[in-house]
């Protein structure tokens, strides 16, 4: 498909486990964003990449959260030593990166920490 693809769609982990969430952006999109959406809330910004460079990680809630995009395409969001408050939907969005270009969202990964 031509949209943003995220995997897995659902992830259940025990507290303390590490998880990795994958995002395949739309081909040609240089900007990639990760957002966290708690139940019943709007998405909140986590981090931003332009190509392979992570230009803004101000939204990452703790040093347990780590994101990478080594070749400027696929991105992985890793959460170490998961805690119950990490339970949320993690959304990835991509755009062409030019001023005003819209962000296109994937359907997210729903993470549940037991």
């Amino acid at each position, binding site marked *: 498909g031509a949209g*943003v693809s995220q995997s897995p769609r659902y992830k259940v982990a025990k507290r303390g486990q590490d998880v990795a969430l994958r995002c395949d952006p739309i081909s040609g999109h240089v*900007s990639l*964003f990760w*957002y966290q959406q708690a139940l*019943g*809330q*709007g*998405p*909140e*910004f986590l981090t*931003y990449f*332009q190509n392979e460079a992570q*230009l*803004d990680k101000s*939204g990452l809630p703790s040093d347990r959260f780590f994101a990478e995009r080594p070749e400027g395409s696929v991105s992985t969001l890793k959460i170490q030593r998961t805690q119950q408050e990490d339970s949320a939907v993690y*959304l990835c*969005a991509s*755009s062409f*990166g030019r*001023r*005003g270009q*819209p*962000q*296109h*969202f*994937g*359907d*997210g990964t729903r993470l549940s920490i037991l």
Partner: protein
Amino acid sequence: QQQVKQSPQSLIVQKGGISIINCAYENTAFDYFPWYQQFPGKGPALLIAIRPDVSEKKEGRFTISFNKSAKQFSLHIMDSQPGDSATYFCAASKSQTGANNLFFGTGTRLTVIP
């Protein structure tokens, strides 16, 4: 601190009626204001967006009204249909910077009754 405030939290409208959702912001650096529609289990999808140099933008049944002096903007859905039942998010970004991460409102759950 919520950078974009959205109301109402929920809205019930009869089929054929007008749905109105309101948002307000404080940061005058924001210059791009999109509205997203989200269905359960799906990612947000861009509906319509506006820049502060215009006061109104219309696309089909969807209209954004923008009041720069009041720092408010609203979404009007004309001739509301049951298929419009979804959660709507307003958002804002500082698109001039290029790192245009979105600040979202808390969402409005719209139900259109047949």
